């Protein structure tokens, strides 16, 4: 059921991302201060925004699981969170590269965005550990959902608190001081953001489709063989 429209979506994603990065390389002007290096912005910032939204979406799905007790919601939360974890790795790596290139250090502690992202990343790194250290599937789903809700709420709060210890190194590209960004950059950035969001949705749907197809196969085999133990599970990841 999740497979429907996947091909169109994948095509759209490829198109948007290709267009975005073609614009990045051939159309947008080089930034005056940082030059070519600044173009990592079109990868770094959309990834960060999509990863954070993914974490929050995982929290919402976790809340839905707690309210409905429908395994689908837990699976949705799981897939959203672990895709966001992968994106978050990318954010930390590209952020570090950008920091090295434009500020001369791989890491800056007085940089609220970087630091709060690291804290969020470390928190979510525990998600899998927690999940797979509970054997009972129903309890695993419940505890993972509680984690997803708490951590999802923690994401914006953490950013607010870390930001209070403010510094002004980080380019405040989207905040209150938007003034500086030329319209070409803004447009390209928005296309890149849309492409990244589409990529996230495509991967999410793809994994959901794979999981629910797997669950269907299992159910069919179960009816043929009449014995669930005959089918060894390959991973501890949740299924339907």
């Amino acid at each position, binding site marked *: 059921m999740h497979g429907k429209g996947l091909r169109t979506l994948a095509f759209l994603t490829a198109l948007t991302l290709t267009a975005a990065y073609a614009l990045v390389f051939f159309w947008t002007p080089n930034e005056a201060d940082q030059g070519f290096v600044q173009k990592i912005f079109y990868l770094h910032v959309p990834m960060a925004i999509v990863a954070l939204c993914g974490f929050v979406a995982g929290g919402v799905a976790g809340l839905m699981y*707690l309210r409905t007790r429908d395994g689908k919601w837990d699976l949705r939360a799981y897939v959203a969170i672990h895709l966001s974890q992968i994106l978050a790795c990318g954010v930390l790596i590209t952020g570090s590269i950008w920091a090295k290139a434009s500020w001369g250090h791989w890491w800056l502690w007085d940089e609220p965005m970087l630091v709060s992202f690291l*804290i*969020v990343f*470390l*928190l979510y*790194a*525990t998600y899998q*550990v*927690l999940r797979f*250290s*509970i*054997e*009972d599937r*129903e*309890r695993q789903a*419940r*505890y993972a*959902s*509680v*984690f997803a*809700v*708490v*951590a999802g*709420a*923690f994401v914006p*709060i*953490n950013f607010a*608190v*870390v930001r*209070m*210890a403010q510094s002004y190194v980080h380019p405040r590209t989207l905040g209150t001081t938007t003034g500086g960004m030329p319209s070409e950059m803004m447009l390209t950035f928005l296309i890149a953001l849309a492409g990244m969001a589409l990529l996230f949705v495509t991967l999410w749907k793809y994994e959901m489709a794979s999981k629910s197809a797997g669950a269907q196969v299992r159910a069919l085999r179960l009816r043929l063989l009449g014995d669930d133990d005959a089918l060894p599970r390959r991973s501890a990841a949740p299924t339907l």
Partner: protein
Amino acid sequence: MLRAVGAILRKDLLLELRTRESVPAMAIFGVTTLVVFHFALNRPTVEGDLAAGVLWVSFLFAAMLGLNRLFVAEEEQGGFDGFLLAPIDRTSLYVAKALALLTYLVIIELIAVPAFAILLLEPGLWQALPGLVLVLLLGDLGICAVGVLVSAIGIRTRARDLIVPLLALPLLIPVVIASVAATAPLLAQGGAEALPGRWLLTLALYDAVFAAIAYAVFDDLLED
């Protein structure tokens, strides 16, 4: 609800009074951490930022010790089953455990803060005391609000001692940031400066938000 909270709290404090499982270990651990800091930093005295950091890291680690043990009696001796069978609101367990942990933390602070003042602190403690009590209380509330929830999550997993600090430390980083920022001017060299109001407000808001979240989801942890 109030009566249930009172009963569970009384049970916990009585149990602690008789077995002395958590509080002495937490207090000794807190003081030992201070001593370790003296050697690790290789400084006879600390003040300002450094003093605030040393103090809060010691409390935080001592609190982790308490968090690991908070629900052990319930888990090992069937307290959860008894609790679930009783016709009472389930969040009363959360409130009672948070109050019990708060009591433990206050006790270890009564021991560790004077020890800190004698062993490490350069400026006098008296001038800082009124503000410090307020910050400690708000910080403790934050540790309790998050810690009890994390402890309840961790107790039913295979890797309890591992999960609890891994989850609690990132969640408590905002508390550390705000508490240290609020404590630092109190312990500054040459007299306590004014208490930074916005950090107190941050702490209070954080405590309130996480207490509300934990209150809302705690039910779901206790279902089987």
